[in-house]
């Protein structure tokens, strides 16, 4: 049938476009021309220095364009949120630019934008960041502004109130997206009551519980020079970087109190392995499958990166090949390894039409098994390593990309020389190491699969295939609780 159809179409093609689609001459090869000698990727060498107050200053030079990215990284993020105040690190970071050192929020915004870009302040799981990218002559002013917001924020009551209302709206917007909600529930399934288990940006209830004193205390305890890194990437020398850092941050006092202890990233896990969530009116279902993974300090980090690259790290990786390219079930299916400070997760996700959920879940789980069961071919491995290394090299082409890579290395106490060793490390991973990593970290009995969508179109089929699956409703989930407030349903 297919062959017959193709032959017929080929005929139509020739008939219709015979004139336009002329036969190529002999000078046009029938196979792709072979590549020339490979160019070498040159990665600039970073310099690291530490001020007397403990602030680590890292700079990397990339001239060509008169641009510099300045990024101040505080080595604490939402993993330090008290369990009842999920989103505290986010809210604190957000408030930095909403009044500081005698400047109001509009004045700070205007000052930054006059220099050329917005001053963005955000929190992640393990860090809080304030960053700005400006043309070189404006760097001293940009750093002075950055120092003001980091060191002397007002945290005024009226700004807190405004930021809370906005954060609650943002959370509501996010929860209306099927894959975003599935991701939050999958994180709960993976980390349970641990520090990485709660919704990182909080819930409407947890955000409302945060008071001004909480924000002030969080800032006082964690925003300090011996818990921070300043990164300057772009058109700047190490000597200039040190001098500018000294000017803006040299007199930032180091408190004598020790840094607060961290909670373990993972805790008690109480969600079932298959969670179905009905979201009224969802035009598509979001499917997220998560497994616990090692922290960034894991000695097999590069094995994990390469395993993830084969599984779903790019367009041509297996998940997208099976779910999108071969079957047209989704616009895209991908995976991501997320190694954090003291735990990690390995996530796969896809959005699909509601009735196709069982098939997409099957394909995902099948790919997890296959990665641990079968040896990856040399050709596939070489291709995915090239994808990974190429993408890494391109990420270093911009000043913000360079700053991001350095921030990650410094945050996780990795030797900065690793920035240029990445191609070699990725290249050294063997099929055996990859398979071993997959077998260990994609175990079926460790994973949590979460589907958010119009459950009427898939719940019955899913419960038949997975009798232990639970069905919840998006409108009644309590995301502040490790069991989602669904204790009754799961027992």
């Amino acid at each position: 049938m297919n062959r017959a159809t193709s032959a017929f179409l080929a005929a139509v093609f020739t008939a219709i476009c015979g004139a336009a689609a002329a036969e190529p001459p002999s000078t046009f090869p029938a196979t792709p021309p072979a590549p020339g000698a490979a160019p070498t990727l040159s990665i600039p060498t970073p310099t690291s220095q530490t001020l007397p107050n403990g602030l680590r200053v890292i700079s990397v030079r990339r001239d060509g364009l008169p641009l510099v990215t300045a990024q101040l990284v505080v080595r604490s993020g939402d993993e330090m949120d008290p369990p009842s105040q999920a989103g505290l690190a986010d809210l604190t970071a957000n408030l930095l630019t909403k009044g500081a050192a005698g400047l109001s929020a509009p004045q700070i915004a205007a000052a930054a934008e006059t220099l050329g870009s917005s001053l963005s302040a955000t929190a992640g799981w393990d860090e809080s960041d304030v960053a700005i990218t400006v043309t070189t002559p404006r760097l001293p002013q940009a750093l002075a502004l950055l120092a003001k917001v980091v060191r002397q924020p007002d945290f005024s009551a009226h700004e807190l109130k405004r930021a809370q209302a906005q954060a609650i709206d943002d959370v509501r917007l996010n929860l209306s997206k099927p894959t975003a909600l599935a991701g939050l529930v999958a994180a709960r399934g993976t980390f349970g009551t641990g520090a990485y288990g709660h919704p990182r940006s909080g819930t409407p209830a947890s955000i409302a519980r945060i008071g001004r004193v909480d924000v002030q205390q969080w800032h006082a305890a964690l925003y300090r020079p011996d818990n921070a890194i300043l990164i300057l990437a772009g058109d700047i020398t190490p000597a200039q970087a040190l001098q500018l850092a000294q000017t803006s941050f040299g007199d930032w006092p180091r408190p004598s109190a020790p840094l607060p202890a961290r909670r373990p990233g993972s805790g008690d896990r109480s969600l079932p392995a298959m969670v179905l969530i009905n979201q009224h009116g969802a035009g598509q279902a979001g499917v997220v499958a998560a497994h616990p993974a090692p922290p960034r300090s894991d000695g097999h980090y590069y094995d994990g990166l390469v395993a993830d690259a084969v599984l779903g790290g790019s367009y041509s990786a297996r998940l997208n090949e099976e779910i999108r390219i071969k079957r047209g079930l989704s616009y895209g299916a991908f995976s991501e390894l997320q190694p954090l400070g003291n735990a990690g997760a390995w996530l796969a996700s896809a959005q699909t039409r509601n009735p196709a959920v069982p098939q997409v879940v099957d394909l995902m789980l099948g790919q997890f098994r296959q990665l641990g069961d079968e040896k990856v071919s040399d050709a596939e491995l070489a291709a995915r390593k090239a994808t990974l290394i190429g993408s890494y090299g391109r990420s270093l082409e911009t000043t913000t990309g360079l700053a991001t890579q350095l921030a990650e290395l410094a945050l996780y106490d990795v030797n900065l020389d690793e920035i240029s060793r990445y191609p070699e490390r990725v290249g050294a991973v063997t099929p055996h190491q990859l398979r071993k990593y997959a077998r260990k970290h994609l175990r079926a009995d460790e994973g949590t699969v979460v589907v958010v969508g119009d459950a009427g179109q898939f719940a019955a089929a899913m419960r038949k295939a997975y009798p232990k699956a639970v069905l919840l409703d998006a409108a009644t989930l309590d995301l502040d609780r490790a069991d989602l407030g669904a204790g009754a349903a799961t027992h």
Partner: protein
Amino acid sequence: MRLRPIVLLASLILLAASGSPAPAAATDLHVAPVRYQQRTLPNGLQVLSVEDHGSPNVAVQMWYHVGSKDDPKGRSGFAHLFEHLMFKSTRHMQAEQMDRLTEDVGGANNASTGDDVTNYFEVVPSNYLQTLLWAEAERLSSLNVDEPNFKSERAVVEEEYRQSVLANPYGKLFNAIDPNSYTVHPYRRPTIGSIEDLEAATLPDVIDFHRTFYRPDNATLIVAGDFDPKQLDAWVDQYFGWIPKPSTPIPRVTATEPKRRKNRRVTVTADTAPLPAVALSWLIPPAADSADTIALQVAAALLARGDASRLYQALVYRHQVARQVDAEADVRVGPGLFLAYAILASGHAPEDAEKLLHEEIIWLATQPIDAAELERAKTLLLTDELKQRQTAQGLAFALGQAALIGGDVARVNTDLAALQQVSAKDVHRVLQKYVTGARYVTIDYLPPAKTGAPASGENAK
């Protein structure tokens, strides 16, 4: 796009441009001119290139002068569906071989379809330049999609529709802007199309579309990054030179959008969006009218670029009626749109935001504009431009935008000077002419009536 959902074309890219340091500006920003080369092959293929050895990569882009405005009758979404099919088989390439020649060797590829253009873009280690030139010539000269590939890729595009329009809480709103903003011009068809029209598409449609629009005299090849110019010319001649130029004319959209005679208001139902929204649109002139469109882009930046902007300060910060606001000059080859929209804050209705949107725009159009504020808006746009030019891909996009949307590649270096010279008077003039003195369409985006979110019912008119 193959990987990312279709969004409103970011009009700021039009300012993907720079010139000699503008003497009149009080800014210390210096954006060096792009030193590009330009030539046209006898078969009509335009070739633009710019050398930049900052990284060992090269960007290869093919821009075709065809977009969703050229969708065949009853086939909305076709130009975009077609874009996906260009990754399937050709005379000498198997389906997805483009990925083998890019991703698998350390590069990347993607494509996008807009109202006016379709572009295919790759970035690869520079030793693969020859390979990619061959591959682009190959799919320009012979596309050979089979039925199974056609059907499975059409299903992918339907998932893209569901993801960007149905599952995105504000997808239906953005998808409703063009259909409600134009009455005659084919821009009124959304680029993503509809499930029904996609289902109606056939393989003969694909063949016909390729024959009609994918021809050397309707394409621009752009190469930026690490290459040798002489070698590039030789390869381009070898791989593209033989492709015949058809004798038939290229169909062009000739529709003109009539001037609006009255304001219009429509309501779109939000299925899953937790907060209502409101969007306003006005008609603006084509990109060729650079004096007015660049001033409109500065006006949009004054209104909505950054937290210090007028709309953010008024709606999000001071009155707190909105959670998000934006304004943009969506400049196109044909008539474009000036857009302003707000996603409401909890407890507020679209009319609260709508009133303030109009007030702020009128204020900007009529009252003095502080020189520092104007300078700030320009600085933001210029710094964006510098950031874009850090990569080969960014440089190539800047050239393509100038050549195909702006209509003249030289605009990559002249629009910046024009931007530097935009005055408060210019901002007043264009806002009064196209916005405050013209008719607008209002789209209310509201939850379904029966679920009755607060204050949503009474303002639908």
